[in-house]
């Protein structure tokens, strides 16, 4: 039996295997070569042609119901699409519109909101960003202060959002704003607004990250007027709906292939640096590969339970912790494997693809902070899975 570190990834039934075959054949031909295996982070305008191709093929929104232009796909089919995209090194279309806000619009939006926003998300013409974090509200999101006051048929928004991925590219933002400053508990006074980024009074400033590129932006709101019909769901009901659909999304962003890809890069760069002959490197590689196998087993087990509606509450936090730490450790081994090439700020040419280990490692620092720091995930586990007192 030949070994393959993706061996545990797929155990498709015949229908799924046929779907995978179809996806693979199409992607091999359709995905533009220049978009594959990019060592640097890709921007929304760069990913748009690929987004459009997937849309034309009908595969851009596997998780949406068919009536809204989605595939109504099973979780396994959704995972297959992610797997096949990463297999050829294709970029993943940004999830903020497709996976973060669209499912909420579909679930609680008005017919007008659906008609206005869903088509642009499907075609990729509209780029969305998520306005949640603030300087004083990160992992402790419920303490957010950006204020929205209803005056007649408009909300007037004042405040500041931060760490907004693609904020400087976005046409629209979905933002959690405080609509009741006196609410107890605090999260009961928060609403979800859809905000046109061209509105008067919004100033956007890109934030240069440790990686050196502008992944995030911050936004300043100075008496920004938002029509009342852009309130999504109920007034002061934003917290509940914003956490409605996170479970399924985590499967797309936490696929074990992310770590597998980094380990394969470590192997490639080790051939150039000579680390491939170093027993210490090989030992660490083996440990990470075994951890990758364990995480892969958990991931597929979780996906099967999720599809059956039986996933435990702890799963989301376990996935976040395990996938985050595994990817970080893999990226650190990649830099170790590069030896003196590790600190290089330019791409390293390898047989297969140009690599930039330091950039990969910088990128992975994000995964233990974004979307709730891993320490917060451990708090969640202690409380909900282990029933420990506070």
């Amino acid at each position, binding site marked *: *039996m030949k*070994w393959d*570190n993706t*061996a*545990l990834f797929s155990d498709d039934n015949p229908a799924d295997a046929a779907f995978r075959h179809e996806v693979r054949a199409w992607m091999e031909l359709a995905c533009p070569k220049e978009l594959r295996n990019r060592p640097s982070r890709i921007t929304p305008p760069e990913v748009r042609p690929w987004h459009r191709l997937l849309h034309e093929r009908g595969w851009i929104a596997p998780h949406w119901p068919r009536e809204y232009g989605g595939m109504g796909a099973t979780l396994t089919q959704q995972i297959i699409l992610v797997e096949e995209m990463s297999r050829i090194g294709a970029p993943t279309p940004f999830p903020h519109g497709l996976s973060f806000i669209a499912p909420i619009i579909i679930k609680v939006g008005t017919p007008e909101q659906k008609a206005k926003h869903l088509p642009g998300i499907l075609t990729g013409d509209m780029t969305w960003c998520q306005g949640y974090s603030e300087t004083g509200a990160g992992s402790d999101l419920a303490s957010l202060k950006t204020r929205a006051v209803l005056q007649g048929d408009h909300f007037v928004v004042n405040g500041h959002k931060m760490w907004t991925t693609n904020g400087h590219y976005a046409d629209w933002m979905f933002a959690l704003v405080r609509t009741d400053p006196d609410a107890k508990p605090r999260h009961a006074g928060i609403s979800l607004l859809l905000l046109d980024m061209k509105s008067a009074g919004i100033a956007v400033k890109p934030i240069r990250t440790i990686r050196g590129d502008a992944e995030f932006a911050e936004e300043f709101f100075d008496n920004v007027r938002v029509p009342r019909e852009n309130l999504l769901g109920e007034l002061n009901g934003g917290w509940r709906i914003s956490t409605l659909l996170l479970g399924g999304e985590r499967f797309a962003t936490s696929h074990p292939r992310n770590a597998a890809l980094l380990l*394969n890069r470590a*192997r490639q760069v*080790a051939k150039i640096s000579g680390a*491939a002959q170093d027993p210490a490197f*090989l*030992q660490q*590689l*083996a*440990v990470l*590969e*075994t*951890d990758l*196998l*364990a*995480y892969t*087993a*958990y991931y*597929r*087990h*979780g996906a*099967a*339970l999720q599809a*059956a509606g*039986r*996933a*435990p509450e*702890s*799963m989301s936090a*376990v996935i976040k*912790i*395990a996938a985050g730490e595994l990817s970080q450790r893999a990226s650190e081994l990649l830099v170790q494997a590069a030896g003196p090439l590790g600190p290089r700020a330019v791409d390293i040419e390898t047989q297969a693809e140009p690599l930039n280990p330091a950039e990969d490692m910088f990128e992975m620092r994000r995964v233990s902070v974004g979307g709730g720091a891993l*320490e917060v*995930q*451990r*708090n969640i*586990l*202690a409380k909900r*899975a*282990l*029933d*420990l*007192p*506070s």
Partner: protein
Amino acid sequence: MEPILSEQQSLLRDSAVRLCANLGGPKRARQLRNDAVETDREAWGEIVKAGWLATAVPEQAGGLGMGMFDLSLAMEEAGRQLLMVPLVEAAAAAWALAHADRQSSKRALNEALEGKRLLVPALAQAGWGLEDSAPPKARTGTSVVLEGRLRFVPFAATADGFLVAARDGRKEPLLCVVPRDAKGLCVESVPNVDGSTSSEITLDGVSPGADAIVARSDKARELMAAMRDLLALGVSAELLGVSNAALDMTLQYIKLRQQFGKPLGSFQALQHRAASCFVDIELNRSLVYRVFSAWDAAQCHPAMVSATKARASRTALEVTRTALQMHGAIGYTDEHDIGLYYKRAITLAALYGNELNHTTRFFKLTAQGA
């Protein structure tokens, strides 16, 4: 996370949970340790009577024709309840006998399934941390004569016989059943920290009879490899149960124990360590389920086995160490039960290859890419 089970498997699992909880537990384990008992014969008798040994044996060989996955559910429970029973060993031997194609293996298998004769594998330690250990030599002619020694065999003092892997004059492997009372066979047992034993079997011109051979050459090679993998996998399932039980006991303790006017479990430093243990155990649970399922589907790459044993060993040691730490001084006493789990973890982590041995094996089996 819960395994995904059929209705029949759910019933099977429930009965394993009940049976092992009735038979085992820390009190029983302590008693056996104090009495220096190698095998809990009473518990073992009940397990065989309940048909667990027959679970993974094919129907045409006289078994129940279910899978190793089903049997692993019982192995996990045996670990959780600190049972001193040779379930993993007897299951590996039964698997080999059921898949050997000789008449002689059938009788041995039937006797094992009926509980008349406990057979355990006796294999050389190469790959398990003792690289210079060679299998016994077999002189074959009209009958077979065995010469050599086998080390670190568990349950050897109570076994009625051994499935010995030897090498013939052409250095070809050969698998044969050797009765415990065969002339020239000597067992010397040494206790482990958890009360279990590890034995050295000396074969001094042992002649087990002409029909003792159950497999030769390629078949013997295949069955030996399968037994080695099954032993490592079975112990991984046991380690999963040990880890889980130790974490559960610790969680109970830190919820009750008060210091600085608060339960210990309310301190974030302890909460985060407990959460990390939980994550490690959850991943191992899925891995163990997955790899046993792959075994039943004949898709189990040996590297998966080593990954599983390496991780199960590492996690069990980490979790039981953490458990001791969270118990504070009482965890350092012999009186408290948490130490029983720590010592069981130490023994099982080393059995059939420890984390280092299996990490190395994993690397060798997967090296082509590096």
